[in-house]
């Protein structure tokens, strides 16, 4: 294999594997920018994966599956928003509970879907014109899922919204200093609810991608720790949607290389990767003090007038 096809192959696989990570990370970035940590990504993704598969298989339409996944993801996030924003429960505990709940419930409800392969998965698309750019065209613009292209466009749009619009200022201000936003007439609860739910919708789609496109079937626990990579990537990307694209491609490539090296390493190594990566990112973030870039009120429930 020549180096060109090697690069093309790596990039292609990185993007495919990275697509659910990108959707999940973009969603988590928005939730955390509004000051709410949601450790329930893994749970929302797995619920999204199961509902996408079930609906796609029953209706024969994979897009309806993705829609179902986004709705389910949004509802799961709503639970987290209710506990962490309205009841002001500990966000970390609430998020962890959501992950455990999602993994358990999907396992329970999914038994009858195990072992079936999906009739018609999401189609792939090629972007005419761009695909003819040498090397990059073939790697980035040929035979990718629609969700991959949409995800990258979404990253740009979300970056723009965050930094260049009214909404963006409101969201960032809520995450930095909710009491300031409140004093300026922003409905802090509404912003936090919307951002958390939006994050859940994206996480749901991320899960749906896995079961109706990446591996068009349902297996229990098929997210395999991706939710935790999302949490790590959110920090790695310094809560910036554009940097998230870079982080996702980088991790996707790493994962692909590890996959290639499977002949020399035990398969457990591959399963270990997401968690090892998450720990590594947190350690590096700690050393480099990346945490300084975190929204200042991240994880702190807001109570008006509390001293």
């Amino acid at each position, binding site marked *: 294999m020549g180096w060109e096809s090697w690069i093309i192959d790596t990039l292609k696989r990185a993007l495919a594997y990275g697509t659910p990570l990108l959707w999940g990370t973009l969603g988590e970035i928005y939730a955390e920018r509004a000051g709410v940590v949601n450790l329930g990504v893994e749970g929302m993704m797995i619920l999204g994966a199961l509902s996408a598969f079930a609906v796609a298989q029953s209706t024969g339409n994979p897009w309806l599956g993705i829609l179902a996944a986004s709705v389910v993801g949004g509802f799961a996030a709503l639970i987290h928003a209710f506990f962490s924003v309205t009841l002001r429960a500990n966000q970390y505990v609430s998020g962890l509970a959501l992950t455990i709940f999602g993994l358990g419930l999907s396992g329970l409800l999914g038994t009858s879907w195990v072992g079936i392969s999906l009739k018609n998965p999401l189609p792939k698309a090629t972007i005419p014109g761009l695909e003819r750019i040498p090397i990059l065209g073939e790697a980035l613009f040929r035979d990718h899922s629609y969700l991959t292209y949409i995800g990258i466009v979404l990253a740009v749009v979300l970056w723009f919204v965050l930094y260049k619009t009214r909404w963006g200022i409101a969201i960032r201000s809520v995450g930095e*200093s909710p009491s300031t936003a409140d*004093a300026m007439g922003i409905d802090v609860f509404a912003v936090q609810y919307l951002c958390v739910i939006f994050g859940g919708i994206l996480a749901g789609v991320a899960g749906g991608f896995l079961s109706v496109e990446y591996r068009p079937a349902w297996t229990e626990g098929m997210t395999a720790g991706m939710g935790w990579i999302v949490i790590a990537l959110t920090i790695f990307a310094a809560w910036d949607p554009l940097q998230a694209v870079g982080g996702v491609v980088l991790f996707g490539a790493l994962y692909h290389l590890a996959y290639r090296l499977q002949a020399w390493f035990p398969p457990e190594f591959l399963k270990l990767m997401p968690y090892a990566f998450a720990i590594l990112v947190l350690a590096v973030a700690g050393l480099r003090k990346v945490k300084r870039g975190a929204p200042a009120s991240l994880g702190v429930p807001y109570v008006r007038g509390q001293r």
Partner: protein
Amino acid sequence: MAEKRTDAHPDSLASHQNVALLMRDITKVFPGVVANDKVTFELKVGEVHALLGENGAGKTTLMNILYGLYQADSGEIYLYGKRVRIRSPRDAIRHRIGMVHQHFKLVPRHTVAENVVLGLDGAPFLAPARAVEDEILQLGERYGLKVDPKAYIWQLSAGEQQRVEIIKALVRGADILILDEPTSVLTPQEVEELFKILARMREEGHSVIFITHKLDEVMEVSDRVTVMRRGKVVATLSTADVNKPTLAKMMVGREVVFRLKKVACERGQEALVVEDLWALSDRGLPALKGISFSVCRGEILGIAGVAGNGQKELVEVITGLRRATRGKVFVLGDEVTNENPRRIADKGVAHIPEERLKRGIVPEMSVAENLILKRHHRSPFCHGFFLNLRAVKRFAHHAIEEYAIMTPGPDTPAKLLSGGNIQRLILARELSGEPALVIAAHPTYGLDVGATEQIRQILLEQRRRGAAILLISEDLEELMSLADRIAVIFEGEIMGEVSPEAATLEEIGLMMAGEKRRVRR
């Protein structure tokens, strides 16, 4: 808001065309305290109205109710004669009320323009910050509020941040502007500038509520003054008809005699020597840049300066809570640079920290436990692994009596005490065992006049006993009356040192703003 005309307040007070605001019989109860007790407050159009009261009198609570941050338990609010309900800051803004909070409501990591445009009705969806830049500059011209719209808040001085807050209110068309203790973070010169701005606003027809506990400021800027004490209004008067002693008496509820018994003391051995000290702030920026000074037994060295100029870091480095990156600290001749806090404390260093609740006590633990925190590991409070509870109790009873700590008993959680009593508790703990060096950071901040007097008296008593005292304070009057020498700190450097007898407030103010002067010995 659907007020009917019949809702309009009928009697003479509000029927006057020139009444901008009437708050009537406002009551607000917090657990354990009536913060506002049937408070009635009236603001005329185009006046600067001072709201005067000691800390805890209920001034902020009343204004937070007006701004929609709190809901009153009972009482009514009328704006220009019409009854209104204000349920959130959004409502208040819509009624053209603006508030500059004591602790600024600004997002430090955003720019001035971003802060101004946050939540602003009518701002464009795209590039909203750019859209207000011109307006910020124009308002700056008109009212003398100069500030760069593209600057980040964290880059600005407290005075500049305050201007941003005022601009925020003006951009929203505020007719009524509330300023909560606006001078507490300013240098004397910045205070003068603020007063000019207020005069300008009065000319332009705004009505201003000016909250303060400083009598001089009331006399200087206000047209009328409302005095509050313990949640109640004592009186509303025309400033021209009152004088400072009368106001002081109303505010405190008794005759105030500002007299401190300061006896001459002999300077003894050097208890604290600091040499070329450097340290970083939490953000990793240099906070101390080569600080040197010494304090002798029997003297008080005051450190003056606007908050955030390195005072906090200085205290933390001396007490071992923060690493010095360069330089040396000596206590009683022994080097203690970057030693651990317990070892420094055991050398005879008392620390009265700036954040009482966070660093002075463990709020959930009892008064008795808090009293022995520093010495629980030593006799008589422990025998090996076990605490000697009887000794702890005995010590607690003794301390409660000696320092007049008002508490139901030694087992009460410390958090239930009032600010003044928490401070007495901290003093009782820190000063037991006769320390050679006392580091006192803002020891009377936020305390009422009685507690303030007592704590100053205690510090002077320690000086007389022969302790060296490093007193960090933003209150220049406190420094002038207690300190033997005053050093002024600005951006992590000592600007100079003066003696309180010879220096003027103006001189110190200039140094607080960064003007260096030759050290006069």
